[in-house]
């Protein structure tokens, strides 16, 4: 069953609901969820504490000190109907396009050569195939600031490593199956590391009280990687 035009609301706990949009993830479902999140937050009266967009669903946490849950759910259901009318009428929002300088070099990317060997491609081809795609931000999670980007060229896809590394460097760019992403901090990880980003998508969390400025990416945005030389890279590097 496809819920495309009739998203349905499921209550998860005392203060949380889940809006199901589709049974399969696509660029269209990601955009729809992102649009809906923006719409509901724009029309919120203070009862939404958190909005968690994923590729086919939107989870909302309600502040029940401000609004009784049942009233909040009713209100959201009504706004959802309004959103569906507006969404079909207006153009889909176009997310921001981010250009990320990346260094594709074995010194910072331990899986670049193994991946090339695995797919019987040259390193240059790997770089070209990875950097010529405009990726969509599907979801953000796992770590603060970690954005799952898709879809990776099928000639580059590779499963997660059997034994995750205990230490992947901050700003590493990796591939896992059809997704690619940037590690916002040093972390254990099983993704195949093929490059390093000059930009950290996550800003210093303590430095600003404005949540909007802390993570570069939002669900529905676009990301492109631009291969740069080592010297260009060190000029552009942030923390």
């Amino acid at each position, binding site marked *: 069953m496809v819920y495309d035009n009739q998203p349905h609301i499921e209550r*998860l706990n005392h203060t949380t609901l889940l809006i199901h949009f589709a049974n399969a993830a696509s660029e269209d479902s990601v955009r729809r969820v992102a649009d809906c999140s923006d719409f509901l937050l724009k029309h919120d009266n203070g009862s939404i504490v958190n909005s968690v967009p994923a590729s086919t669903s939107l989870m909302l946490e309600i502040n029940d000190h401000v609004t009784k849950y049942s009233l909040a759910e009713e209100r959201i259901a009504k706004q959802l109907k309004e959103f569906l009318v507006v969404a079909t009428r207006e153009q889909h929002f176009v997310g921001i396009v981010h250009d990320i300088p990346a260094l594709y070099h074995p010194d910072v990317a331990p899986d670049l050569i193994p991946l090339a060997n695995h797919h019987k491609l040259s390193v240059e081809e790997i770089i070209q195939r990875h950097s010529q795609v405009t990726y969509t931000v599907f979801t953000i999670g796992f770590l603060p600031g970690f954005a799952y980007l898709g879809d990776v060229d099928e000639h580059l896809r590779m499963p997660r490593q059997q034994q995750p590394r205990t230490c992947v460097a901050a700003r590493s760019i990796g591939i896992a199956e059809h997704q690619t992403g940037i590690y916002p901090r040093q972390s254990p990880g099983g993704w195949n590391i093929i490059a390093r980003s000059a930009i950290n998508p996550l800003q210093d969390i303590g430095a600003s*009280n404005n949540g909007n400025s802390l993570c570069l990416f939002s669900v529905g945005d676009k990301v492109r990687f631009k291969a740069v030389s080592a010297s260009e890279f060190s000029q552009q590097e942030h923390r």
Partner: protein
Amino acid sequence: MTRKLAAATVIKPGPHSLLEDLGRCHNKQLGLPSGGAADIYAYHWANKLLDNLNTSAALEITLGPCILEFQEPTQIAICGARSEMTLVRTGQRHSMIPWSARKIKAGDRVNIGMASSGLRSYVAIAGGFKQPNILGSCEPLTADGRLQLLAEGDQLYYTPEAPVSKFNRSAHWHAIPDYHAELVLSLHPCYQYHHFSAEATARLFNATYRIEANSNRMGYRLRGPNIPWKHGGIISEGIAFGSVQIPPDGQPIVLLNDRQTIGGYPKVGCIHASDCYELSQRRPGQTVRFELVSL
């Protein structure tokens, strides 16, 4: 004229202590967990005994021991895990009554011992601890979003002139939970509940699960009869507080305050919040059961 703040110095921090309140808001688009006090019930009581706002920052101490020294007079209340608590004043030791407010004089040291029953204690202070907010919460974070735990020598700030209650109020003993009692977790069926087999869910509700050692604010790992799932991965979706996740090994995990924001493992439903607060006071080795309940 700005009020001058007083400091409580951390003489001994304990293994996992930090300021908490009700948690962050508008944090999940970043992938940042909500945080907040693990046992909201004890946290609320501690603040309530002092007539604080129910969002006032309190110190969450996991296991202990913890020693604080107060610069200026105030009033505090400690609720949660049972432990030996002593007030040291000009060389004299006075025992402290749990789940009660207590007036503090300048120079007083408060020794909170290791928890013997329960796991987490909340130390509230008149007017609340003063701490810059990150996304609406006092919970301190490192630059890259990790928890910043209390260290020896740290200072916790408070307003010495905050109004204190004339009397040292106590919670009635009826209000104090028994953390040794076996806990029954009320499960609201949702998420992938209906895609688990009837046999799998029956197993869940008939079994007793033991809490594993690697349980923490992110989640409580349980060991017991495994719950089979035959459908492969699910599309990643938001994870609600109290979600019961079934990973590939079939051993349930109850996800709590510091859980990841989204995930791709199936879930049988969510535990009622009040049972989650109780769960956070259970220790590895204790047992729990599940019960099917609707909201």
